[in-house]
């Protein structure tokens, strides 16, 4: 009994609260931010220059950004990037319903 009492290392009166890491500092993994930016660039290229492959790349970049995103990050940005890339794909097919041609053809 006394052994249990002396071995008890718990101190309920010495509790310190958790301080979450500063999210504004550049984290060790910049992948979601880079992919987000890349996705937006591809979307704009796909929309303005009517390039289907750009639009598809944008969709992939948004997906990768979403997969690697941190929980503390704003979901609105990821969602808006997604929507932009999907709109780029839809617009490029509405303007030109032709299928994509691979570069070797």
């Amino acid at each position, binding site marked *: 009994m006394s052994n249990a009492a002396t071995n008890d*290392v718990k101190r309920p009166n010495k509790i*310190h609260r958790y301080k979450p890491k500063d999210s504004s500092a550049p984290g060790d993994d910049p992948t979601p931010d880079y992919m987000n930016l890349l996705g937006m660039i591809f979307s704009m290229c796909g929309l303005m220059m009517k390039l289907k492959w750009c639009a598809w790349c944008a969709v992939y970049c948004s997906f990768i950004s979403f997969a690697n995103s941190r929980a503390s990050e704003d979901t609105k940005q990821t969602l808006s990037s997604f929507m932009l890339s999907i709109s780029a794909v839809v617009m490029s097919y509405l303007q030109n319903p032709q299928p994509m041609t691979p570069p070797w053809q």
Partner: protein
Amino acid sequence: MKLTLALSLVLLVFLCQNVGGKKSHKPADLDDNEFAEFEDFDDEGVLSSAEQEATVEEEADFPSESDDIVKTQAKKDDDNEEEEDEGVVENDDDEFEHFTDEDEFEGFDKESRPGKGKSHEVPDLKIAKVPIHLRTNWDSFYLEMLMLAGLGVYFLNFLAGKTKNGKLAQAWMSSHRSILEENFAIIGDDGLSKEAKGTGVFNKESENVYTLWCSGRTCVEGMLVELRLLKRQDLINVMTTIMKPASDQIIVKVTMDASSMDKFCFCIGQKKVMAKLLKEQPDLGQFTEKKAVENYNLPESFQLQSEIGEATSIVLDKKVCAYLEKYEQQIEYIHISDQYSGAKSQYDENQSKMPDVRPSLVFCFNVPGKGKTKTSDVDGMLPLMKLVFYCVDKVGRLALSKEKRLKAEKNRAKAAEGYLKAAHSQLQEAAQLRREEKRRLAKEKIMNEEDPEKARKWEERESKRDMKKKQAKTKMMKVKGM
């Protein structure tokens, strides 16, 4: 005589009339000649043929309509010409015979004329290429199908990876819950709730990073357990891991109470990691030196950095050395320091300010399996958690000799002085720049000043100031010399 005059007059009049009539009749004659073939026809027939000529040009666009027109006209003319339907066609041939004259046109090939029938000498139509429509031809959209399939595969991998990582975290929690509950008052705190209630679950930082904060223990301020699992939810990362195998990592960071730990700095870890740590951790670079591992009978793969030998020998006792030998592959590094400040930011080149330090113990463990981790592998990490608590208690009880303590304090004082000097020199530089800037502005002002009197006065003042400074310097030099 009178009779002859009258007759001649009549003749003249008659002749005049004839001449005028001929002229007027010429176009009519021409017209008549043009439509000479249709003389037998009624006016309507003439009109229909004219219409046909007009419609031939439009045949390309409205072949059916012209056919209809011809037919309707043909029906009207039925009374007069029974064979008008075919007669019209035949007439067309006759009508446009001069167009088929080879001598008339260059490069005209009679044989290549379009066949008779409804086409009515339709010019060679070039049918425009209609773009392939989605509804008509799915096969041509194979690249799009490929893209969608790729997205589908990525999404499926995302779900599978996310689930696997979640299961691993859950498995760790269930196997380590008992030992954590023995040592800490609260397990799991997100820092946001009003009361410090232990949630008992991980905080999900991302799909592959889980954190757990435990607090309420003797000598310890708190312990942060970070599960840095592989990015199984990202297909690209999965493929990279296939080519270059990596392990899931568990990083345990124990923050000690300020008064609980003696002053020393120590680190032991895998050689390939130590180089990176020496660059990133300022305390290791400032206070520690490389020591030989052979003295402690440790495997060659480890590298030892130590500040105070006495502290190192106390920490690396038999039990710890046995652990290091047994779990050689699983122990990435153990970093114990009273000057722990975390990794140096790459962007922050400013070394003048002393970083915020806390006495800490950091343990980094690799989960066995090299990526192909099973939940049973995670359960096997329990002995290493026991090592953590053993080290924490040991460091808490550690007491250096007076001599070593003084040495440690001296080292820290030296480091602090270095920071102060750097800060001071930076301040001096900044002050110098400000002064120069001020002078430059004043000079510009004077240059722009139109009043020569004022300019002269300012220049005199400046020269007097410079002279005084020089005199003061020389005086100081003289005093020093004496």
